[in-house]
């Protein structure tokens, strides 16, 4: 009889564990939104993403190679005559305007990170995160203060650069990035800094929500060139001088 009761208790313990496991699993599945059934889908998408990323890397290498060849052509052409030499200078200027040349100069470095202020329940968490708009405003303000070149997390801002929210990340030059954001700007460090720290300015409005901002004046900032593809499918230039 005692043996039987002990067995029953054992089974009860097993049932207890089973119930616990079932409920935990049930709740986890419910929370993550049928994570199990979509596992295959996740794997599928991961594979797809990986192959696309590989392809992108390859294409990027190709772009780099083509750019190198282009500079080779330019160099060899400039050796031929003074006209081409002048043209090369003009070309360099145009490329500098377009942001296709890397370089360096004095300026400031701004670092933005999500708020670390403890959130009160009921408060909108969106207020404490960095949004695309915030970065857009900072970049805009920097250009307004005479910045000659701006990059965000190593992505050079050029005329066609987008700064856009994609889910929890921000996409710039088709590159996803997450906080912290490091914004480099080349220009007069004093001007740039004061434009940021302006009363009622962008930094002040960000700091209200506890977003961590640090501004550092730099003697020499390295500025990367825009490395993405440039395509004109629809734009046709008006022929000048004809």
């Amino acid at each position, binding site marked *: 009889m005692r043996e039987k*009761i*002990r*067995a*029953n*208790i*054992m*089974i*009860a*313990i*097993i*049932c*207890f*564990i*089973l*119930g*616990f*496991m*079932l*409920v*935990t*699993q049930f*709740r*986890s*599945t419910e*929370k*993550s939104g049928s*994570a*199990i059934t979509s*596992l295959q889908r996740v794997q599928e998408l991961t594979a797809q993403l990986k192959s696309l990323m590989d392809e992108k890397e390859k294409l990027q290498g190709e772009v780099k190679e083509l750019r190198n060849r282009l500079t080779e052509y330019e160099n060899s052409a400039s050796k031929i005559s003074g006209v081409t030499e002048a043209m090369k200078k003009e070309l360099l200027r145009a490329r500098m305007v377009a942001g296709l040349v890397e370089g360096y100069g004095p300026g400031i470095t701004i670092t933005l990170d999500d708020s670390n202020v403890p959130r009160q329940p009921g408060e909108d968490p969106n207020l404490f995160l960095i949004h695309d708009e915030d970065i857009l405003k900072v970049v805009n303000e920097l250009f307004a203060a005479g910045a000659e070149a701006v990059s965000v997390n190593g992505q050079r801002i050029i005329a066609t650069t987008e700064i856009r929210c994609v889910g929890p990340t921000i996409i710039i030059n088709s590159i996803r990035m997450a906080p912290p954001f490091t914004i480099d700007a080349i220009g007069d460090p004093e001007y740039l800094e004061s434009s940021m720290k302006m009363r009622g300015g962008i930094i002040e409005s960000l700091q209200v929500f506890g977003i961590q901002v640090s501004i550092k004046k730099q003697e020499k900032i390295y500025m990367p060139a825009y490395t993405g593809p440039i395509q004109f499918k629809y734009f046709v230039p008006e022929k000048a001088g004809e």
Partner: protein
Amino acid sequence: MNNVLLPLIGLLLGIIIGLVYPIYIPVNYAPYVSIAVLAALDSVFGGLKAVGENNFDVYVFITGFFTNALLAGFLAYIGDRLGIPIYLAAIFVFGVRIFQNLAIIRRDFLNKFLKNQK
């Protein structure tokens, strides 16, 4: 009556405690735990079948429960690391066994019930 009562209380207690303490399994491990749960369910149905056939052994039951659950989760994990969907095999084996055991349990139950009627 006592035979059913204690395990049932255990099951209810487990469910209640599971509801009260919100422990979440990380999404990455959820598939492995689900396999473990399936293995555990299989063990329990196996135990019920053994009770019906009167050859139930507590120690076999307990060791089976734990080793099956852990092994199933572990194998699924290893399979994922190696890129082999072993969890499919586990689902298949345990699923088939659960249904078989259920059929046997049902037949046992029906037999007993009909005998009592006569």
